[in-house]
């Protein structure tokens, strides 16, 4: 091969490699992204059955239920219009609490119960997952139910 041919082969090889990498990335992307749904969308049948997605909303007060002394637990995620029951087994985050924002990763069963394999709660008192905040805001007439006592610097 002449140097010129060799260079062309090299360039074509690189382009082919990058194209293959791009195609694989896109297919990995299509298969592995997770969509977010709120309880109203789940109730409306928009969420897929037996496929992983993120469910977000508020933990309904009084809904956390666990068999004493066991890791099995269940709670209700609400957007103040619809509720979805979530079952989970394991350690929940420090900031998991009733009446606070939560995001659960898992699958929806045919019985309408969401089986979570991962629970995320907000990282600090003032933070709510943005999609949860938006979902609730739309359902709640634009009023965000926030805990008022920890929000701002004491100005007295």
């Amino acid at each position, binding site marked *: 091969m002449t*140097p010129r041919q*060799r*260079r062309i082969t*090299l360039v074509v090889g*690189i382009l082919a*490699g*990058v194209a293959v*990498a791009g195609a*694989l*990335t896109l297919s*990995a*992307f299509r*298969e*592995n*992204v*997770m*969509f*977010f749904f709120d309880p109203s969308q789940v109730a409306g049948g928009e969420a897929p059955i037996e496929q992983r997605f*993120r469910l977000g909303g508020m933990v309904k007060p009084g809904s956390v239920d*666990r068999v*004493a*002394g*066991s*890791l099995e637990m269940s709670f209700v995620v609400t957007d103040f219009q619809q509720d979805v029951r979530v079952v989970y*087994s*394991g*350690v*929940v985050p*420090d*900031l998991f609490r009733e009446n606070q924002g939560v995001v659960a*990763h898992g699958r929806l069963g045919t019985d309408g119960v969401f089986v979570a394999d991962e629970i995320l709660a907000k*990282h*600090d*008192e003032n*933070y709510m*997952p*943005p*999609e949860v905040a938006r979902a609730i805001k739309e359902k709640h007439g634009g009023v965000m139910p926030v805990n008022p006592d*920890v929000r701002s*610097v*004491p*100005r*007295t």
Partner: protein
Amino acid sequence: MIAELGHFTLILALLAALAQSFFGLAGPAMDRPSWTSTVRPAVWVQFLVTTLSLGALVTAFVNNDFSVEYVAANSNSALPLLYRVSAVWGAHEGSLLLWAWILVAWTLAVALLSRSLPEPFAARVLGVLGLISVGFLAFTLFTSNPFLRLDPAAPDGRDLNPLLQDPALAVHPPMLYAGYVGLAVAFAFACAAMIEGRLDQAWARWTRPWTTVAWAFLSIGIALGSWWAYYELGWGGYWFWDPVENASFMPWLVGTALIHSLAVTEKRGLFKSWTLLLAIMAFSLSLLGTFLVRSGVLVSVHSFAADPARGMFILAFLVIIIGGALTLYAWRAPLLRSEAGFEFTSRESFLLFNNILLVVAAAAVFVGTMAPLISDALGLGTLSVGRQYFDPVFLLPSLPLVALAAVGIHSGWKKGRLSDRRQSILLALLAGVLLTLVLVLGVWEGAKILTPIGFALGLWLMLSALIDPIDRWRRKLSMTRAVIGMAIAHLGLGLFVVSITAVESYTRERDLALAVGESGRVDEFEYRLEGLSTVEGPNYDALRGEVRVFENGKQVGLLYPEKRNYWVQRQMMTEAGIEMQIGRDIFVALGEDLGAGRWSVRAQVRPLINYVWFAAFLMALGGVIAATDRRYRSRPEPAA
């Protein structure tokens, strides 16, 4: 008074930065030596006043001056001194000031160490750095001023976020910023070269050590953050593909490509425009990282602000800097033509593939990080991308990269002459495969598909990295810092691959429900909760568990995990109990009260996990050693 001094010096710093960029860029352009020679004094002034400004903020924190809003929001009189100091960069405003200070510190270093550079070129570099300073100082001053007063003063502060009250996290931001901002130096060198329309091998030799040191800081910063997430967040992993982690990882990947491409430009005068493009991309990704983290677009532990004005400012700054640099590139890059050719097995082509794979990996991470934002902005639905995407798309280019490195570090410039090293390389491969068999069959049992591949590639690279230093030592050849640094850095990469493979393949983990006196099994390990007691810290009280861990009946660990309740923020925090051992970490985190006297407990045993961070440290160390090589220091510089 001290806050006003800080505010005033911040304004002075902005003026000094304006002067610095004006004289640095206009002086050489209009050929006025008196302007050009004003740049260095301007840098000194900017450094002094920015230092005073940062010092004023530190003083306000140390003295618990709760009449300053930022101090009141992020500190507390009960906070230990170390965290009162680190609280300076514990939130948005102060971290920007720290950023601006680190930038001017780098600029001063460039000003002091660039005496051997041609005067107009050095002035232009300092001028471009001045422009970046202007951006950051104006941003701090106009949207995020940390010196605003609170009237009347707060009786006490709201305390630093308990998550950030940690020694590793006290040093994580300064290290990471030193890396981010250090890439600004490479960027400024690239812009100055494009303005002059000249880029030669001397240029690459000036740029290389700066870039390598910045890259080393970035490596340390990322490793510290990852280490912190491991023991402080109580999740027990080392990397979560969190958007904010990715934001620091993308400039690292491109920066890694840049230091390799600079090697080709220095030694062979090739890849010139590609090197420039990488320098622009690396710094742009640093800025993008700042934008993502600081604008509130991404929400995570790191994002302090959710203020649209700040987001718009950073976005505008981003557009000006990246757009300006790319325009300059489009205009000037055609002037920089490389003449020489190279053969297929030469070092140049190995480094070319290194660059392609690194950039492909960075692009894959970029797609996964940005897709949720773009989809959200376009109203295509809210989606999230997790490790199910990132793991495979990152491994795909990375594994060949490791194999290429194991061979490529022995290839010669221009003509590939692997023949004299072929035997050693194959021997290293053979030894790597044998050691893999020992690890997979003897030390740990069972394996996933990638386990032997990861071990073999990592061990091969580790052994291969040692061939050159051993060979030189035996033949009593000169051992330059460049040789030693390169060997250590690649040894580190090999160790990194081996340790990640071990962690991913052999981690034992389970969530248990334990009452005092009960024990639970995690495969061959038994975790027993011996007791629970209450302890009190300076600004928190905690429930402390005592957990004994047995392996096949023999005690291998005694751990004290805590569940802390910080008084001021009324926040519950997990403080994991971790026992570091030679080959593994034994980890336990206390969950919550399950009722019936039981507590949830997260139990994990992770082999080699400490070596992940040690390996990152080795890579950084290798970089620093190579950057202090003699040829960067003593050789008189030819005129550019």
